[in-house]
């Protein structure tokens, strides 16, 4: 401090702390130049601790626009240019060289100068965006885990083909989302980590496990609202299902209801089980409503009751003549970007009632835009008369 007073070093400090009544020479830095490697990033004050604690990442492939991710959020990055001359003055220790030269040039210590290292052409700004999770779905869909793999014998020394398989580290390199959003994305896709790789389980294989579980519950007299984890997994394992995958089946269709040290009890979720069977039935195509209901009730395990409300966002119904037809159309198969989502919805149906539309858009979450805002942006609202139900068409 003392020394600085005697022989000021210059730099940003001397600019920012210039005393009233004082003057300071401003010069180009010894290393003045374009310095394209020096970038400015505008950040909210509250994000600074994330930066200093190194919890901020830029993510994206070379052909994608990079995003900035904190632990929980994703931000788009845009460059904002300026026509002003923005002179960047680094702190003094970085202008040591320039100082030395000035000293050598005989200006001595009394010559206090701050130096400009470059002119900034602008800065990067960030805007919170929705994570780009559709890519996660397509990555994990490349190689779902199915029966072939499960029944494959583990042969020592044999390398399994790893193409289309992704570890956590691969996913953060590929998917433009924060760690937190990626974790919820994996959960939403019902992905499970098997041998270090994040996988989704093939539908038909999952169906097989669930049916086996229900079958066993009848044989063993297990109550569906109080399944003993160890018992269930033990039996499924002896039926030839890997323990990990059997456990995943419990977590997909049930919830842990109690856990006391050694024992873990699961309760199957009526809605998730029923929706599973409805999806399965409609996989082959559309059906007459009566036939569907009949088939559906037949497949549902005893003790559970199906209701059409469970199928919001899963099926569409339409009247053809006197018959009502039902057809699988699952919201989980739709893209998560609003523009793509709405374009598919309106290709499916040019006009939507609110009660039909709502289940297909309620999961859309765009920072800074409410559902109301999304509707304004992507739909036209038609209300034939004041007391009529509004109808939405494409904008």
């Amino acid at each position, binding site marked *: 401090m003392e020394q600085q007073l005697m022989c000021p070093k210059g730099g*940003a*400090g001397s*600019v*920012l702390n*210039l*005393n*009233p009544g*004082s*003057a*300071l*020479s*401003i*010069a*180009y*830095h*010894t*290393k*003045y*130049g374009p310095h*394209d*490697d*020096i*970038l*400015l*990033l*505008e*950040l*909210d004050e509250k994000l*600074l601790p994330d*930066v*200093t*604690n*190194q919890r*901020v*990442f*830029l*993510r*994206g*492939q*070379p052909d994608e626009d990079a995003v900035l991710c904190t632990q929980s959020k994703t931000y788009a990055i845009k460059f904002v240019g300026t*026509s*002003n*001359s*923005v*002179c*960047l*003055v*680094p*702190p003094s220790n970085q202008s040591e060289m*320039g100082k030395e*030269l*000035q000293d*050598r*040039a005989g*200006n001595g210590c009394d010559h206090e*100068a701050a130096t*400009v290292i470059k002119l*900034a052409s602008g*800065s990067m700004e960030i805007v919170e965006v929705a994570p780009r999770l559709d890519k996660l779905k397509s990555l994990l869909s490349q190689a779902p885990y199915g029966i072939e793999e499960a029944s494959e014998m583990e042969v020592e020394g044999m390398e399994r083909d790893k193409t289309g398989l992704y570890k956590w580290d691969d996913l953060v*390199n590929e998917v433009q989302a924060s760690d937190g959003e990626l974790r919820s994305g994996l959960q939403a896709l019902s992905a499970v980590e098997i041998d270090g790789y994040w996988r989704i389980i093939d539908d038909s294989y999952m169906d097989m496990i669930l049916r086996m579980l229900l079958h066993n519950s009848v044989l063993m007299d297990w109550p569906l609202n109080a399944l003993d984890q160890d018992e269930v997994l033990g039996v499924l394992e002896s039926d030839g299902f890997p323990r990990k995958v059997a456990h995943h089946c419990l977590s997909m269709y049930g919830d842990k209801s109690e856990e006391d040290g050694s024992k873990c009890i699961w309760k199957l979720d009526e809605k998730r089980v029923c929706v599973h069977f409805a999806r399965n039935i409609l996989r082959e195509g559309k059906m007459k409503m009566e036939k569907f209901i009949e088939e559906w009730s037949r497949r549902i395990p005893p003790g559970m009751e199906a209701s059409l409300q469970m199928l919001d966002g899963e099926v569409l119904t339409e009247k053809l003549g006197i018959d009502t037809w039902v057809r699988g159309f699952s919201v989980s198969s739709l893209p998560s970007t609003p523009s793509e989502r709405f374009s598919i919805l309106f290709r499916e149906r040019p006009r939507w009632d609110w009660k039909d539309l709502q289940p297909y858009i309620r999961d859309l979450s765009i920072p800074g835009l409410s559902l109301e805002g999304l509707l304004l942006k992507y739909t036209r609202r038609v209300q034939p008369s004041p007391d009529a139900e509004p109808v939405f068409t494409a904008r």
Partner: protein
Amino acid sequence: MQIQLKCSCGEGNCLEWAIIELQGVVEVQPGFQDQLQDLEIGRLCRPSQDTYTFTVGYHELTGSKVPLKKPLVVLKKIKHLRMEESSDVNSSSSSEVELEVIGIIRHRILFKTRPKALISRPPPVVKERNHAEGSVASG
């Protein structure tokens, strides 16, 4: 790919940089255009508590110190290449790029007025030349 923002500053200790911002551009005399390094641009004065002036050649700008609404983080792109870095900024491949936080900017000295012509001939012009010549010779 992902690039971690590296920061060795420690909590709240990032070195502060400054911005001196003015409208338009500083014209350099033709003879110095290729050799700006170490050349004096002008003199920054703080005649009173709230006023700053920046004298460049025969012109004086008046401005003030303004806090930025949001701080700017100064990042340095570091490329780990064995060879000399390639001229194309975008051609570098993934894992070799690092971004390091080297500073933070919270204030700028902003001159948004038109320059006022000074009547008397200020000494910096002469000095500018001397200084520049000196540096060329010593460099």
